[in-house]
């Protein structure tokens, strides 16, 4: 008896949950409304079946519950009924399948006027490539991949020269224009997923997959990686900004072509040296850092990292958070580096400074630290030497008090929460795995020992 009531309640409860729960598809931002419609159809069919079958079952249990002396009806089978049910079910299936297949037919063939964009996945970042004037993307191969050619574009392929490279995880797209996303992976499986677009697809190494969609709503959307790709799968995030054609064109033109990245005007350490004079007052002549000035050690940091951070300071991506007092100081200093070239130069100079090793100020439990560092090592390297490929700076040799502050900033979102800080967002998720000060000290103690 209770069971009957419970079954009925469960059916009702499920329906209520379905209609009342606030958790439902995110408002759609692409042309794939047809998918939502297919889902609605499926909901009606399956919903009907769910209610009908379960309520019938409940009724049967109530109606034919055990009664003393009563005997069940003996009926091995009932051809007619079974045929009917089979037929109806087949109908129901067809009703769901048919529209689905039509939408799929739409999904697999890309409209002629779709513009191309290549989405490149790697552990654990996104980068993007647009075709240049020639409208064609150059061929690629992992064997070409290097620090200077992170996209692995074939240097001998003319089509590749004018390709425009977006070397961060923020993708811009014009509103109302169909795009064909060509998906490529440098290492393992990934999946470029934007819930609001509905469409998504895996990317695999060794081949190229695709899907197409048409952004129909302006805005900034989160990209999540939807295929397990290792330890930081959950931290492989990106952004898609849908905007007007004008804004898009302007954004696109602000990015270098492949050719440009190859023939980069090299930085000049001499000029860097003169610029560095100012920095030395805090960071020290050798860039060894200075605790009293709260200035981290700069020597030993690779130019690509210094360049990125300085640019962040300049653009207010870093040091703009009101709680980031020291960062603000640094941001204040940035006017001494007038332009990009200055940044390159000074970075080049710093990179030449002799590396010194900072003295340890913390002590924690290195064993536990080693275990905790296990996660960090995937990106920062087993010896915390840093890794360009994962955009992870070296940690070994840096002042632990500085690292500690940064970790805490990450945890509180003081650093890395700015939408422009493409790589910091990842660190927020990772820093949170260090649940308390003790954990941080342990890790840093271990790093000191490296």
């Amino acid at each position, binding site marked *: 008896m209770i069971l009957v009531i419970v079954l009925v309640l469960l059916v009702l409860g499920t329906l209520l949950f379905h209609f009342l729960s606030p958790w439902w598809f995110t408002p759609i931002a692409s042309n794939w409304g047809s998918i939502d419609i297919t889902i609605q159809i499926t909901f009606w069919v399956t919903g009907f079946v769910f209610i009908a079958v379960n309520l019938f079952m409940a009724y049967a249990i109530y109606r034919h519950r055990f009664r003393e002396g009563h005997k069940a009806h003996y009926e091995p089978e009932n051809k007619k009924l079974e045929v009917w049910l089979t037929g109806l079910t087949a109908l129901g299936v067809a009703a769901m399948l048919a529209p689905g297949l039509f939408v799929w037919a739409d999904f697999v063939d890309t409209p002629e006027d779709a513009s191309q964009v290549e989405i490149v996945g790697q552990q654990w970042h996104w980068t993007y490539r647009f075709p240049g004037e020639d409208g064609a993307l150059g*061929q*690629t*191969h992992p*064997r*070409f991949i290097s620090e200077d050619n992170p996209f692995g574009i*074939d240097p*001998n392929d003319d089509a590749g020269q004018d390709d425009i490279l977006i070397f961060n995880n923020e993708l811009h797209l014009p509103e109302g224009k169909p795009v064909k996303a060509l998906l*490529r992976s440098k290492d393992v499986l990934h999946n470029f997923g934007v819930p609001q677009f509905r469409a998504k697809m895996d990317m695999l190494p*060794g081949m*190229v997959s695709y899907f197409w969609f048409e952004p129909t709503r302006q805005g900034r959307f989160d990209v999540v990686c939807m295929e397990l790709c290792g330890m930081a799968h959950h931290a492989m995030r990106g952004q898609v900004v849908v905007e007007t054609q004008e804004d898009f064109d302007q954004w696109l033109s602000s990015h270098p072509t492949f050719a440009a990245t190859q023939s980069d005007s090299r930085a000049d350490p001499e000029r860097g040296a003169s610029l560095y004079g100012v920095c030395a007052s805090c960071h020290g002549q050798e860039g060894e850092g200075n605790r009293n000035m709260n200035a981290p050690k700069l020597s030993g940091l690779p130019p690509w990292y210094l360049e990125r951070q300085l640019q962040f300071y300049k653009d207010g991506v870093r040091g703009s958070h009101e709680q980031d007092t020291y960062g603000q100081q640094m941001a204040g200093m940035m006017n001494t580096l007038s332009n990009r070239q200055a940044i390159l130069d000074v970075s080049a100079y710093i990179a030449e400074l002799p590396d010194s090793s900072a003295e340890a100020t913390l002590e924690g439990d290195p064993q536990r630290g080693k275990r905790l560092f296990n996660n960090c090592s995937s990106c920062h390297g087993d010896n915390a030497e840093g890794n360009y490929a994962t955009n992870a700076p070296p940690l070994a040799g840096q002042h632990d008090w500085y690292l500690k502050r940064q970790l805490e900033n990450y945890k509180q979102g003081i650093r890395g929460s700015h939408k422009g800080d493409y790589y910091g967002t990842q660190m927020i998720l990772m820093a949170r795995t260090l649940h308390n000060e003790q954990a941080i000290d342990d890790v840093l103690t271990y790093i000191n020992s490296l």
Partner: protein
Amino acid sequence: MNEATEQQHPIGIFLKVWLLLFVLSIFSYMVDYFQLQGYWRWSLILIFMVLKAALIMSVFMHFMWERFALQFILLTPLFAIAIFVVMMAWESDYIHWTRLAFLSFDSGG
């Protein structure tokens, strides 16, 4: 099959099949020896292969003398394999195409 029927297979048929297998093997070897290419190669190889397989299976393994029920239950599952083969051939072709279209193999580096 139980003994009674078993003994009814004369040695002769086995010897014949045996000979036939040799001949077929020689043929399929010749296909390669004379470096036949393209469809000829393909069809011949497959024909000889199927013939040999059929002979071994049906005579040597007594399959032709088994009850239909057994033959049926042993052969039907092979449809699953057949479908898998077709799908995978198709798939590999597709992968191959994307590779040639988007990845660069010719030029050095």
